[in-house]
């Protein structure tokens, strides 16, 4: 990065200070707009419910409160189960996705693999054609039994051709073919070559694809909406969707006989849950930025 910064300073001599100030204002405005909604939601989550009732959401609330968070933790079993589900599927899903992706990408990376073109086609054809949502839903639910279990939440995400492209490109740029040849002359088997030689030299690529998988599974809510009807297998993202639906349902039916208003999730409570979901992403953000930019640049240009 340092090398790239120095020369750009040189060519900047021709932009006037005034112009650069305008540039700063434009970019800063957009950058702030990107982060302000999150800050706003954090503020709302710390606003007292009475202040919300009186004045609505505000950047400068009249009264602060941590009640939303204590209530979130009072959700008890529902919350811990959702958190547990999210963490479990993210960890297990990422590990399995990495095993599948690494093995497949390594085979596609080997130029001397006889069936390389066939397997490349089998994988990448799925990027341009598929059965569509309904047939996939029937296959996963009715044939493969992905219904109300953890499998449904990460099995459909195990292999992403895009990640195979990224992984293969990383292999191509970081593993010299001579290294593989010499390993095979030394009698190293393919699995040993992969584990002891290829993986250690392509760790940045592995970090990139792992983080992409992790992010995708952590942010996944659609699979839960498709395949999960019970309460035990709801991940955090889908808990948030369900709470919103409950609130809408309650709002529509409030005042009607039989409406249960007591258990209606409050506004600040849902915002607090929102913050809890974003926090792990925010903490992992420095890693994400570092590795994912590298991966996305590779993937987007070659993809």
């Amino acid at each position, binding site marked *: 990065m340092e090398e790239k910064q120095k020369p750009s300073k040189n060519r900047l001599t021709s932009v006037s200070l005034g112009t650069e100030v305008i540039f700063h204002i434009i970019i800063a405005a*957009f950058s702030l707009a990107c982060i302000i909604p999150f800050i706003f939601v954090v503020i709302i989550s710390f606003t007292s419910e009475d202040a919300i009732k009186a004045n609505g*959401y505000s950047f400068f609330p009249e009264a602060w409160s941590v009640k939303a968070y204590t209530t979130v933790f009072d959700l008890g079993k529902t919350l811990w189960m959702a958190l547990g589900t999210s963490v479990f599927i993210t960890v297990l899903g990422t590990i399995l996705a990495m095993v599948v992706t690494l093995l497949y990408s390594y085979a596609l990376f080997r130029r001397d693999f006889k069936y390389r073109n066939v397997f490349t086609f089998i994988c990448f054809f799925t990027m341009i054609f598929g059965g569509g949502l309904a047939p996939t839903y029937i296959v996963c639910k009715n044939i493969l039994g992905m219904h109300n279990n953890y499998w449904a939440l990460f099995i459909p995400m195990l292999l992403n051709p895009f990640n195979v492209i990224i992984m293969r490109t990383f292999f191509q740029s970081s593993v010299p073919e001579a290294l593989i040849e010499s390993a095979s002359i030394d009698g190293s088997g393919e699995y040993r070559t992969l584990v002891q030689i290829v993986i250690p030299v392509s760790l940045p690529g592995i970090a990139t694809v792992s983080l992409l998988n992790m992010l995708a599974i952590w942010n996944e809510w659609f699979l839960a909406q498709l395949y999960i009807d019970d309460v035990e297998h709801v991940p955090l993202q889908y808990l948030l969707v369900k709470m919103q639906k409950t609130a809408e349902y309650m709002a529509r039916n409030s005042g009607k006989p039989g409406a249960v208003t007591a258990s209606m999730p409050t506004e600040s409570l849902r915002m607090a849950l929102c913050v809890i979901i974003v926090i792990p992403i925010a903490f992992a953000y420095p890693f994400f930025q570092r590795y994912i930019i590298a991966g996305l640049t590779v993937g987007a240009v070659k993809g």
Partner: protein
Amino acid sequence: MATHVAASSGGKSTGMASTDLKKNLILCSMTLPGLIWLILIRYLPMFGIIVSFKDFKLPSPRATNIISDIFSREWVGLDNFGQLFSSPTTWQFMKNTIVYNAIFIVLGLVLAVAFAILISELTTKFLAKTYQTLMFFPYFLSWVVVSYFVWAFLSPTAGLWRDGFVNSLGMSAWYNDAKPWPFILVIANLWKNTGYSCILYLAAITGIDTSQYEAARIDGANKWQQIWHITLPHLRTIIIILFIMNVGRIFNADFGLFYQVPRGGAGALTKATEVVDTYVYKMLKDTINIGVSTAVGFFQNIVGFVCIMVANTIVRKVDPDSAMF
């Protein structure tokens, strides 16, 4: 490639050929987990497309096996497609899909390239880095979370821009009126994705050989001339590739954006928020007519396939190295 391998192994001893065979078998075994996954999750559903030619609303509770259930249903030819194209809402959601994507592609491109150029011109590198960090953040959030961000501003009971602002625009409430939604959806999409594309373009700009700028400066070119004659031509290839690839996906909408941000798109909003992907989903899970849902999905996939093939052919003409296949 294949002929080369065959020729080289043919020329060697039989011992060499058997290690070759072993190596290929081992490499095949490595593809096995992925292959099984691809067959089950990606290729098996392709056969499910026959459902779009059958009268199949929902699985029969009496059938023990979904496959025999599907085969036992009556063939209805193109009825599911006919039902689709005779409905006026169909044209609405197809038009929405294409128009929204076209707007996203054009505005996304212009904004991201403009921001990338502006950032590359900043002398305060610390601030430039900070801007990038902030801009990239929304890309990492799910549409569920983003829908709450939008709600914080537009909620009818507590949102920052409730009553006054809405009334001045002559609307009842954000979530009951279709009129503002084209703008909300475009803004939400640009908000979430511009940072990401901006960083892609920025990576391309930092890769430009700086001696070209120095030479231009010595020749008396000002900054704008340098941007026009050096920076933009260097971005040309990546712009064209990303542009064409996006055009190839013009019939595929971002489901999360159109489903979560309008909060399920209550009846009043569908005119502005319904796209192919949300329609397919609603047909599958809400209306429950699996035959029609499959038919729409199939139609979408065919259009998408044609678009991508055309796009790829064009990319290959522009820059053969960047073609997908």
